[in-house]
């Protein structure tokens, strides 16, 4: 029996409807959306449009056609950063960023974009007044990870959005760890560009993601090609979503993503969040009793997501993760989680942490087993 506690990497299992929607499409429709005028293509297009509409409902986006699909959040963030910023522009990020945002940001710095990394506190929280101090006359964009993949820390995005709107700076949100779990409202939170991944909290398959671009903002595409529209023109169309969607989409994946988002809307974000908070509380309350253990990020359940990172004094996190799987069948992730800046911020460089990330389908019984296993491993290896 496998106990899967790595939902921050990718959620598993998926709702049954995700598997069936993808299978049904592959077997019965299979056509290329947005191409030609056949009923088959139209059926594909209608399903892809439905996923846009479901995402728009979840994120409170007025026009679903402002959402373009991508391979994952990394691609979406690359498009947003490289398609908007020019040399001489100033970009502000936090010290809790994942490589998906930090690496393209540092690559842009090599090309003449000014970059400021605002330090967060030892629990990973950004102080909005520190962010305000980093703003300069040429600041074009603030890019921020909504919830940390290392500590679960939730950033005050509504305040950041408000500040950005006041200063006429674009606010780019990386929702990799929050979409499908925390409320996201692009209007109320003043989000100009929202990057999301389909395969984590949104419960879709890997290979799906995308970005929402507020009307009026022009994003230069990273790739040009066939869009099924404006076929006579040799120039890339400038309309959303076509301008950012060259080439055949991951149609089965997008349809699966739609089924995942529908499941979330049916269950309700509050119910999903509450279940994850209950599991997090169970983990936190019991793990902290283990001698030699350190847990990272805020203790307040409302200040964090269901990502629980810990270390045991003098034990390599990789050793814990390997033992959890080999001896107990529990899947976790150890190391730096593609976020060296975040580990530096909370003081877990160079060894990193062992990370437990339950999901909506994790049971309390599975958490009990994991707690017991970690107790045994800590006792065994600390000697």
């Amino acid at each position: 029996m496998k106990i899967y506690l790595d939902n921050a990497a990718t959620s598993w299992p998926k709702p049954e409807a995700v598997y069936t929607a993808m299978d049904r499409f592959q077997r019965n429709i299979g056509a290329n959306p947005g191409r030609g005028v056949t009923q088959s293509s139209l059926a594909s297009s209608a399903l892809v449009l439905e996923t846009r509409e479901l995402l728009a409902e979840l994120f409170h986006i007025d026009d679903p056609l402002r959402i373009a699909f991508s391979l994952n959040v990394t691609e979406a963030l690359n498009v947003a950063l490289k398609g908007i910023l020019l040399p001489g522009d100033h970009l502000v990020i936090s010290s809790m960023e994942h490589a998906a945002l930090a690496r393209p940001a540092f690559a842009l710095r090599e090309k003449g974009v000014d970059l400021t990394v605002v330090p967060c506190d030892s629990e990973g929280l950004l102080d909005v007044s520190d962010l305000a101090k980093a703003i300069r006359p040429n600041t074009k964009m603030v890019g921020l990870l909504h919830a940390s993949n290392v500590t679960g820390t939730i950033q005050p995005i509504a305040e950041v959005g408000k500040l950005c709107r006041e200063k006429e700076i674009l606010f780019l949100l990386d929702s990799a760890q929050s979409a499908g779990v925390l409320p996201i409202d692009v209007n109320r939170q003043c989000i100009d560009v929202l990057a999301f991944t389909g395969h984590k909290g949104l419960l879709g398959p890997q290979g799906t993601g995308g970005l929402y671009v507020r009307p009026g903002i022009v994003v230069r595409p990273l790739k040009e090609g066939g869009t099924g529209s404006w076929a006579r023109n040799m120039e890339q169309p400038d309309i959303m979503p076509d301008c950012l969607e060259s080439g055949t989409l991951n149609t089965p994946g997008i349809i699966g993503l739609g089924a995942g988002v529908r499941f979330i809307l049916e269950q309700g974000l509050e119910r999903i969040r509450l279940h994850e908070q209950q599991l997090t509380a169970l983990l936190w309350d019991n793990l902290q009793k283990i001698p030699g253990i350190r847990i990272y990020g805020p203790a307040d359940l409302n200040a964090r997501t269901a990502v629980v990172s810990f270390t045991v004094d003098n034990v390599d996190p990789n050793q814990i993760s390997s033992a959890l799987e080999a001896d107990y069948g529990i899947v976790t992730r150890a190391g730096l989680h593609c976020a060296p800046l975040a580990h530096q911020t909370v003081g877990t460089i160079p060894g990193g942490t062992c990370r437990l990330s339950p999901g909506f389908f994790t049971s309390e019984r599975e958490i009990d087993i994991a707690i017991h296993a970690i107790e045994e491993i800590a006792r065994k290896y600390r000697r």
Partner: protein
Amino acid sequence: MWVITFLSVFHALRAEKILQKQGIDVKLIPIPRELSGSCEGLAAQLAADDVKRAVIILTTNKIEMVRQGVEVK
């Protein structure tokens, strides 16, 4: 017949949904050949009496149109 044309297939499909919700009968058809200058794709065919209202509804819903109601043979 009267048609409205759009920027892309996704815009046409979204227009179809929105208009149907408002009780306007539309049928998506390939863009008629005589509409030169338009892109390839789909047009919404509708009754002459509905054109005005449909254009208003689509404008309020921010669905960009290429031809806001044109008669073709």
